[in-house]
């Protein structure tokens, strides 16, 4: 019926664990509280030390993807604090399906007259890379911390009813794709709100 439908399957954003079966390389395997800081640019290479033949392309992709992920997380938190779907920092780190979803979420916040306060944090706990996928993909596992998250109405800072999180720290799986301008941009982010970390 639609002109594009025949090609959708060529590039579906895969966010399932089944993807792991085809992932070419596991870069990190950090677990527990003594993880390397997510923003540590040497993290992936250092944590991959058990594997002596690290593809430089993989390491570079991982480093760029983690930087994009951390940038996305910070940019989104800042945008949510002002409910601004047009925050230019979003497009620096987000692309593909997650960009429209993020802007839609932020517009919904704005329409409700609400903002998200607090200082959410994230810690990357692992990543996998598949440079031969279409599009090339880095999958990042992370632990997000919304312990001081508050959803409030912007007008009076009063909390939005029923907005407290049952599990403030949980795992998430982000998908970072390569784009034609050479940037790695976060294209998907699946929360696992029932998996504390």
């Amino acid at each position, binding site marked *: 019926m639609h002109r594009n439908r025949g090609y959708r399957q060529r590039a579906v954003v895969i966010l399932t664990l089944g993807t792991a079966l085809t992932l070419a390389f596991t870069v990190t395997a950090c677990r527990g509280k003594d993880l390397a800081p997510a923003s540590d640019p040497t993290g992936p290479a250092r944590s991959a030390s058990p594997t002596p033949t690290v593809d430089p392309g993989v390491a570079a992709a991982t480093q760029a993807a983690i930087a994009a992920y951390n940038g996305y997380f910070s940019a989104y938190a800042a945008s949510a604090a002002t409910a601004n779907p047009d925050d230019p920092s979003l497009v620096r780190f987000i692309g593909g399906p997650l960009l429209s979803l993020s802007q839609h979420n932020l517009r919904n916040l704005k329409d409700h007259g609400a903002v998200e306060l607090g200082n959410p944090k994230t810690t990357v706990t692992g990543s996998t890379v598949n440079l031969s996928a279409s599009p090339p993909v880095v999958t990042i596992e992370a632990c997000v911390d919304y312990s001081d998250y508050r959803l409030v109405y912007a007008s009076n800072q009063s909390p939005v009813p029923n907005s407290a999180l049952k599990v403030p720290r949980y795992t998430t799986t982000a998908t970072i794709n390569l784009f034609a301008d050479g940037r790695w941009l976060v294209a998907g982010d699946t*929360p696992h709100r029932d998996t504390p970390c």
Partner: protein
Amino acid sequence: MLAAVLATALAFLVPTATFAAPGGGNCDQNPDPSCITWGSGGGGAGGGGSAGGHGCTWRGQAIPCTDVDYGSYIGDGCYWKVLVPQPVLPTPPGKNPATGAWGVTACYSAPGGGAVTQVYAWMDNGAVGPTPVQLAQQALARIHLLGAQIGVAPQPGGAGAVGLPVWLWTAVTPGTWGPLTASASGGGITVTITAKATRIVWDMGDGHQVVCTNPGTPYQPGYGLTASPTCPYTYAAPSSTTAHPHGRYTVTATTFWRVDWSGGGQSGVLNPTSRSQTSVEIGEIQVVTQ
């Protein structure tokens, strides 16, 4: 052969990315914590966005033809928006990157909200040309859907009375009742539309409405005091009162149109309206009979 291969590929790639629209209930794929707070209402097809020009419909409900975040409506509850920058994806076989582009298709699970499934999708002319829906809207802008050429008995210059039959009709022309056809082309595709009126909602000015799915029957003097066989009404209160001795009811006729469009391998329906007004004076019956 190709279809079989594609079907197989689809089977291996399920599930696709399914993101919940805020308020859509399922937030399993939506990273924003506020997604689980809003409940129903907010976001979603038909619940947001900007319905530019004439509306689109899906499953019988009006939905925006464009969504500021998800792009242009392409049918079946789906929107498409070109990606800038483009993802690193091969051009599909037989497609030309000069006349098409990768974007994201976002499909709602139900009108008014619900989960949104998003996938990368190629669109011919996506980067350089309008979508079929946009062409349909262009074609619609080229025709003139007129409001009813109102006929009403009693005539606007005359006076009717409470309890006496009022006849409502429009002169039937292509502009007032259809059919009207037009086409618009762009990006190598042509979309043709056909517009037909489906009903007129008569707002009688006294708080009541009359819905007629026909143009009505023109009144002839020989009909006397009989009621219209197709679009009748009777006022229950006078427009003229002691305080307003020459008060009049404003009668507003809103014509609802069904515009079927097809082209570019797609089809759909637009539902514009047109409107016109007149006024009538309705007095007490004893004034008429004196």
